[in-house]
């Protein structure tokens, strides 16, 4: 049986959904941006017209506006994106139960079946493309291939609203001339190394000396070379509607820069509460706390440390985050944004090692307390119960839409965060 894998990528996803809902802006350059007032004003996504004039994802709104005077700036509607992502997944699921989402807008679909050829795969891909356009009003580009890596490459080759077939017969012609940086998992720093060794295309990588790659890059070298040669046998994981969660985190850019540990502490409490609540929602606990710090000069770094026990108690997460900050950040420049992430996750339902000391009782009480606060907030709104310190400085307490929070998922075969 031939393996046939599709990789579907919803084109300019956020911007396409916004353009669907506002026909007036459809033929104008559109950028979906965070709130400027709350200083989240960067471009999150753009449509084809905005791309044409050089608008880039990640740049500030004022920079984008300089490039084109009639730029339409819209705020994101995450609930809509979630709904459209789910609707697209339902369409994929009508062709296969083996669908592995990669973020909200991408997915691999394994449609292998006895007697089915890659040409049949292309026909199915085309049907999916037409259905997405008709039923959702947005477009998708789909790569059809015999492995996941090439399918993903295919979905990038022709867009929007297109199908690319990379078969055993044509992959050398289609894939090998591409820049080596196009290959999945070849990041910026690996690309730089490859260029230094005169490995510029995927074909160069496929034909390079394996031992040389192994010596220079370790075990990753031969793996990447196998991908370039089309030997990727990783299965499409059937993750259902919810992907395996690797870490849960939140970050925020407060309306003004953070200049003292007290202010960081407030932010840390707000972030930790949100992270802890989402851990509980997913029935998870975590053992490692990471902090992400970006200063006013936009340099950023992350630090992490382990907790003694798995937890989803906000104060334990906040305290660990604060100790990381105090050990690593000394206000040489004010802090622009701050994030907390909990990883090394495990099920909250699993067996628990209880300490012989009494401290566990306190932890159980804290867990009960936080679960009660969750239900109060669910019923009466997020501000129904708050820490008193947050009442003083409301601007640090407002995280905005919590769906902005980061939820990292296991990427497809390395188990690493994307």
């Amino acid at each position, binding site marked *: 049986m031939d393996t046939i894998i599709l990789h579907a990528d919803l084109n300019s996803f956020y911007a396409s959904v916004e353009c*669907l809902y506002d*026909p007036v802006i459809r033929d104008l350059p559109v950028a979906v941006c965070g709130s400027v007032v709350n200083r989240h004003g960067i471009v999150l996504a753009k449509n084809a017209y905005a791309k044409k004039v050089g608008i880039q994802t990640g740049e500030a709104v004022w920079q984008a506006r300089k490039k084109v005077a009639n730029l339409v700036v819209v705020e994101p509607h995450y609930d809509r994106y979630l709904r459209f992502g789910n*609707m697209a997944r339902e369409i994929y699921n009508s062709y296969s139960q083996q669908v592995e989402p990669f973020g909200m807008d991408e997915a691999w679909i394994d449609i292998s079946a006895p007697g089915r050829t890659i040409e049949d795969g292309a026909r199915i891909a085309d049907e999916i493309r037409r259905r997405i356009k008709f*039923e959702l*009003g947005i477009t998708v580009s789909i790569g059809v291939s015999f492995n996941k890596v090439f399918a993903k490459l295919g979905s990038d080759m022709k867009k929007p609203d297109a199908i690319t077939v990379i078969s055993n017969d044509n992959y050398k012609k289609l894939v090998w001339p591409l820049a080596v940086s196009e290959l999945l998992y070849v990041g910026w720093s690996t690309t730089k190394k490859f260029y230094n060794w005169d490995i510029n295309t995927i074909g160069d990588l496929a034909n390079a000396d394996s031992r040389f790659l192994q010596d220079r890059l370790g075990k990753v070298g031969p793996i990447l070379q196998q991908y370039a040669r089309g030997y990727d046998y990783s299965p499409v994981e059937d993750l259902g509607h919810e992907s395996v969660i690797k870490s849960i985190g939140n970050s925020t850019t407060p309306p003004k820069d953070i200049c003292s540990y007290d202010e960081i502490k407030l932010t840390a409490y707000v972030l930790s509460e949100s992270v802890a609540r989402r851990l509980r929602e997913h029935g998870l606990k975590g053992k490692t706390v990471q902090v992400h710090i970006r200063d006013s000069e936009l340099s950023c770094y992350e630090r992490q440390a382990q907790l003694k026990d798995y937890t989803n108690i906000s104060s334990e997460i906040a305290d660990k985050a604060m100790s990381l900050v105090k050990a690593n950040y000394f206000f040489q420049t004010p802090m622009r944004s701050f994030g907390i992430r909990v990883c090394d996750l495990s099920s909250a339902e699993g067996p628990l090692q209880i300490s012989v000391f009494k401290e566990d009782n306190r932890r159980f009480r804290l867990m009960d307390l936080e679960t009660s606060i969750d239900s109060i907030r669910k019923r009466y709104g997020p501000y129904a119960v708050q820490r008193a310190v947050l009442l003083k400085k409301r601007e640090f307490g407002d995280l905005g839409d919590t769906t902005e929070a980061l939820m990292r998922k296991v990427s497809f075969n390395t188990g690493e965060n994307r």
Partner: protein
Amino acid sequence: MKNDERVKEYVNVTVKFKKDGAMVPVDIEWENGTVYTVDKVLDVRQAASLKAGGCGIRYLCKIMGADTYIFFEEDKWFVERKVSCAEDS
């Protein structure tokens, strides 16, 4: 060309729920209060409304002899209202 311009108009719809859970629109109340009876539902499918901007279950209905689309999007109903019609009324 301008005649084809449409806007999204949420409307009140009387719906009959069938035994199997299917919904059938019975009549639609326009914003000026006029109620139009749905003579027949000709087609039901998931579809986007590019004209009005939205996406949901699309009902193709026969209303006063004309084919009209009504959309059920999440928990609301909308029609693709002609801009020129609204200006006339």
